[in-house]
């Protein structure tokens, strides 16, 4: 995988391996914070930010600390601690220096440390043996793909408020899963018809 072009890595991350719809990573936020577009875009912004940052940090951690010390088997523990610490740090910095950004992203940041999308991206970087540039590209792409899916989902939910749905489906998680079913059909089939 180390020779995959950056464009291929990016497209993989955004569409073919879309984190929410194809790989099912980060579903809690996919059904939890997509009731309106505003909070969905806030969450997406925070996720792009944190995934990119943790791809960078975890690459250095893995290549320069875990590999030379032959501690690869500790990568799950090491990554989760680093991500949790990173999210805390980002929260402090953003709160101190960028109050407007904190007001829009702030409440979503703590949620992210237990979002499987972040840890998933980092672990997939290691599993695919990506180089540094590829890791960062995949991190950004994963974040963008997450954003695409979150925005489509939240727009559908927001605009379909007047649509009739049976009471057993309701407006909650069940409804979100039915939308996700239709969305994933289009995602899964689109790239069979139009190969990249």
């Amino acid at each position, binding site marked *: 995988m180390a020779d995959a072009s950056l464009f291929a890595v990016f497209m993989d991350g955004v569409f073919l391996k879309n984190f929410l719809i194809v790989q099912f*990573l*980060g579903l809690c936020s996919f059904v939890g914070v997509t009731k309106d577009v505003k909070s969905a875009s806030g969450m997406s912004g925070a996720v792009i930010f944190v995934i990119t940052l943790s791809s960078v940090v975890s690459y250095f951690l893995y290549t320069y600390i875990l590999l030379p010390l032959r501690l690869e088997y500790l990568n799950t*523990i090491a990554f989760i601690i680093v991500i949790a610490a990173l999210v805390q740090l980002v929260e402090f910095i953003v709160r101190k220096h960028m109050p407007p950004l904190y007001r829009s992203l702030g409440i979503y940041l703590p949620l992210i440390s237990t979002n499987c999308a972040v840890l998933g991206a980092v*672990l997939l970087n290691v599993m695919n043996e990506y180089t540094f540039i590829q890791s960062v590209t995949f991190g950004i792409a994963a974040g963008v793909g997450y954003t695409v899916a979150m925005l489509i989902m939240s727009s559908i939910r927001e605009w379909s408020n007047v649509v009739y749905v049976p009471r*057993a489906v309701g407006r909650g*998680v069940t409804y979100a899963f039915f939308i996700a079913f239709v969305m994933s059909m289009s995602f899964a089939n689109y790239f069979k018809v139009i190969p990249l």
Partner: protein
Amino acid sequence: MGDNRSVASEFMRGITKDNPTFGLVLGLCPTLAVTTSIENGIGMAAGTLFVLVGSNLLVSILRKEIPDTVRIPIELIVIATFVSIVDMVMEAFTPDIYAALGVYIPLIVVNCIVIGRAEAYALKNGVFYSIIDAFGVGTGFLLMLMLIGGIREVLGTGGIKLFGVQLFDMVSMLGYNPIGIMTLSPGAFLTIAVLMAIVNYRRILKAMKGG
């Protein structure tokens, strides 16, 4: 938490009221991602069950020593330790399932069920009941993964294959035409959506009868 709890009631609560998928709506990522077949579902649930029991046990033993402000990092480290154990054991003894589950095994760390039970139950309760709770929730999770995995495998491939033994095969016996999409990602969303709608429907019926 009154004194009227018993082992059986604490255990059953994890399967019925606090059922991970339909009651708590937690841990959805593995529920959907690995349920392409019953076998994968069982492998995933067994791993999660072990981590749940281990982390509930350790968190409950340490609950008086853990300072409130840093409890979440400590819980994460405890959970990550058990996940690493599961990761290595599965890689060594069940390489097929390990290859099929891939990245989702290390991701048990961020499975909301595990940290949710540590946070909501093990921090407040004794060792014995914490273990019972972990077994209950873990069993509920196992049943859900087997149910969803079973539905998807039967509809998607037309038969059930368990640990290398073909239990039944509708393709050759009945001329069943498998719905391939059920084993892909849309099938996962459809299965869980329909199951949740059925559960909601029963709840509504019950409420109408009661009120």
